């Protein structure tokens, strides 16, 4: 039987571990899956090294979890691509760079300096930072080097299937499982570039009421005063990323009276999520009085938005058109 099983690897990049855990949502089906699938590499679960990945002769489906933040991640991704028939970006970090993408607001050197030298609680008199060669007792234990920028998987290799979510939720995992099983049984290749859930956006399933006109007169954050739990967040001046986030979560935050932060990422074919959504939000500001207000007055309203990059690009900055600190622009 074992010869008919498909070989799967689960390769971690920069990840929090949530995506690995989410696979456990399959529950008993993980055991069923072992009938069809051989998981030949999963460092989160058992001790594997990059060498083990290199030594595999072939992989059917290579799942990559997390973003590319270490040179080692990039190397692993390239090996995976070389060996695997299909590469899957599993989770928002692999798909879009994830929350680590916000690290691109600083250069690699700035990040390392901040973390290893400049925080008040750091004591590092030898100024050792990762990247430098370290030999202890004659053994080279040099820590891995950071890549210059945080990247989504598809910046390094071609990706065949995307599973969105931070982490992907049960419905998406079930869907992904079906894809795996169907491939394992029939060896039927799936549509390249497929996205799971790849649905419409959250507004499609949002239970909230929309006024005839959504007008933003003032931006508010969730802690500023009561929130109407039945009215569209945008109509209350609260930025909700629902209109540009795929509906793969069952609107769980929205149902808990919290606006969408956009963890699943945008629907397919969005070139620049934040750019697009900033255009949307700007269109809604003071629609009725836009002509009466001066540019300065309008600007003042827009400037109320706290942390625009972190708001509009919380999970997707690495995959934006502007996706890193622009040194030239700053000068």
């Amino acid at each position: 039987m074992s010869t008919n099983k498909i070989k799967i690897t689960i390769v971690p990049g920069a990840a929090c571990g949530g995506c690995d855990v989410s696979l456990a949502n399959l529950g008993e089906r993980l055991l069923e899956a072992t009938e069809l699938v051989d998981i030949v590499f999963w460092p989160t679960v058992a001790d594997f090294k990059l060498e083990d990945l290199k030594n595999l002769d072939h992989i059917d489906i290579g799942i990559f979890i997390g973003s590319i933040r270490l040179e080692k991640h990039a190397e692993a991704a390239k090996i995976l691509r070389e060996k695997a028939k299909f590469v899957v970006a599993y989770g928002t970090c692999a798909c879009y760079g994830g929350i680590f993408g916000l690290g691109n607001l600083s250069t690699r050197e700035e990040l390392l300096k901040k973390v290893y030298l400049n925080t008040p609680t750091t004591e590092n008199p030898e100024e050792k930072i990762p990247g430098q060669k370290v030999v202890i007792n004659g053994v080279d234990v040099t820590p891995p080097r950071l890549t210059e920028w945080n990247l989504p998987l598809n910046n390094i290799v071609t990706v065949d299937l995307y599973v969105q979510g931070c982490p992907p939720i049960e419905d998406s995992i079930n869907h992904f499982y079906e894809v795996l099983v169907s491939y394992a049984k029939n060896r039927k290749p799936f549509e390249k570039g497929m996205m799971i859930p790849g649905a419409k956006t959250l507004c499609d399933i949002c239970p909230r009421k929309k006024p005839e006109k959504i007008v933003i007169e003032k931006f508010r954050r969730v802690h500023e005063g009561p929130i109407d739990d039945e009215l569209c967040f945008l109509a209350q001046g609260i930025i909700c990323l629902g209109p540009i986030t795929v509906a793969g979560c069952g609107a769980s935050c929205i149902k808990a009276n919290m606006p969408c932060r956009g963890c699943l990422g945008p629907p397919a074919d969005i070139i620049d999520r934040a750019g697009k959504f900033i255009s949307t939000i700007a269109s809604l500001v003071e629609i009725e009085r836009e002509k009466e207000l001066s540019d300065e007055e309008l600007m003042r309203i827009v400037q109320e938005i706290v942390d625009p990059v972190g708001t509009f690009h919380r999970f997707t900055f690495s995959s934006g058109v502007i996706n890193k600190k622009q040194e030239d622009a700053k000068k």
Partner: protein
Amino acid sequence: MPKERVGVFVCHCGRNIAGTVDVKKVAEEASKHPAVVFATDYKYMCSDPGQKLIKDAIREYKLTAVVVAACTPSMHEETFRKACSEVGLNWYKCEIANIREQCSWVHSEIDKATEKAIRIVNSTIEKVIRNEPLTPITVGIKKKCLVIGGGIAGIQAALDVADAGFEVILVEKSPTIGGRMAQLSETFPTLDCAQCILTPKMVAVARHPRIKLYTLSEVIDVEGFVGNFRVKIRKKPRYVDIDKCNICGECEKVCPVIVPNEFDRGLSYRKAIYIPFPQAVPAAYTIDPEACLGLNPVICGECIEVCDQQAINYDDKEEIIEEEVGAIIVATGYNLYPKEKIPEYGYGKYEDVIDSLQFERLLSSTGPTRGTIVRPSDGKVPKRVAFIQCVGSRDVNHLEYCSKICCMYSAKHAMMYKHLVPDGQAYIFYIDIRAAGKGYEEFIKRVQEEYGVIYIRGRVSKIYKENGQLIVQAVDTLTGEQLEVPVDLVVLAMGIVPSPDAKRLAEILKIPVDKWGFYQEVHPKLRPVESVVSGIFVCGAAQGPKDISETVAQASAAASKAIALLSKDMIYHEPIIARVNTDLCSGCGVCESICPYGAIKVINKVAEVNEVLCEGCGACAAACPVGAIQLRNFRDDQIISMIQAVLTR
């Protein structure tokens, strides 16, 4: 994409383009584009031989798309598209690359300008090969016109449209038509009596078989689109049957309530049951429900008792009238800038400081004084009168613009004053005299020379009272002298502002207003009476300050535009409109919120575009978070290709 065969035609525009851009090189470079099968240049593409060149090339090279590199598309897009369509090319497969306004006119270095022109042309080629051939959308027309506002502009427009054979609905918010002009005495520069030239037109409106007049009415809602507007009108109760009332005036005699008369701008009094002026149209009394003791015969029924015609009905109710019209003309007129905003001139504090319309009423033979000039405080004839121009106008703290008519009517005021008080002295305080108009300058000269009116160039700083004497404090900027002129009466030529309802109406009609609230025309020179909403026209002082002759001309212009529209059996609507990809749309409602034309509705979680209402502005396409809305022939993929073409070479 099927293989396109593009022709590129580079215009010299005499030396306008060829002087700065190497047109031969532009054509040569364009011909290197894989989709281009023919490229040439010519001295004047818009000329007959130029157009023939394009047509011949379309036939000879079987072109599927054409790029004309020439002037702005607002100049000749239609010319070239027409030429193309004459030989069978779709109207929308011809695009203009603007290498004049956006290139040759604004640059001087030939090399760089040529390079830019090449890129503009390449970018336009990328667009045109992705353009879909489109056909205009056709719709029928309701052959009826709504005119809002019954002043001279509305009257003229209504008469013109009705005379052309179309039904007209004329809506006026006050009890009578006539507007501001009915309040005036004589008109400059001919000194025609305003009422004498206006009332025949008012009567013509009343008698016209095709004009339906709603007074005491206002438009409260407008839906629909050009050719097919659905209008809701709120008609307030008049409490007097206009068909029964024979204006005998008995009711007025017995009415016990006295209130200031707004028609005379508070210089006289009227009863609660009143007629604004004897020639009012409709010729009928009105009860002012706020002044009347209660519209209740138990409290007071004096008027009902004396009315032989039984025309008075206290139970009259408000009505909502619905009409369907094809065109709308907006003529809501003007108001004076509130005098309270300029406290240094003492209006309200000193009885003998009045505004120009009050002075018109004093001059009028039907006015509160039957045309004798007396001052409000003590009824004496004022021997020294100061007329102050630009009160609020041309003032950065108030209205930045010129109210245009004040120079002329102040001169007229001074002249009429001298007619009535020959031994009186008139002073006119002015900043500049603007007398551009037929016979206007001559009129001013006469006032200055024949009537001995003293013109003082300088702004008045203050009007105050000293020992019971009004004093105008000013500086004569020609002599540099400080002046303190004692006068008996001051007339303030208040600036002109749109009528207070204009803004509300603009919102209902979804037409833009300018910074000051005047209705915005599409183009100040070329489309002066059209609003951005097709089928809605503007005229008169609601569009900007203007005198009667200009108002009448503009009203007729608006009417002729409306007539041209109503004369068509079908109208064609530009097919460059928004289109929704229903697979992507999640119904977030952003587009519906921002559409200035009310053309998008979210139905069952998917946006739907009303093809006729959509004006193709693209606001929704920009706002749609997921790119589900695309503007036809201005799709994202086209624009990205255009940008790439501009950036790479």
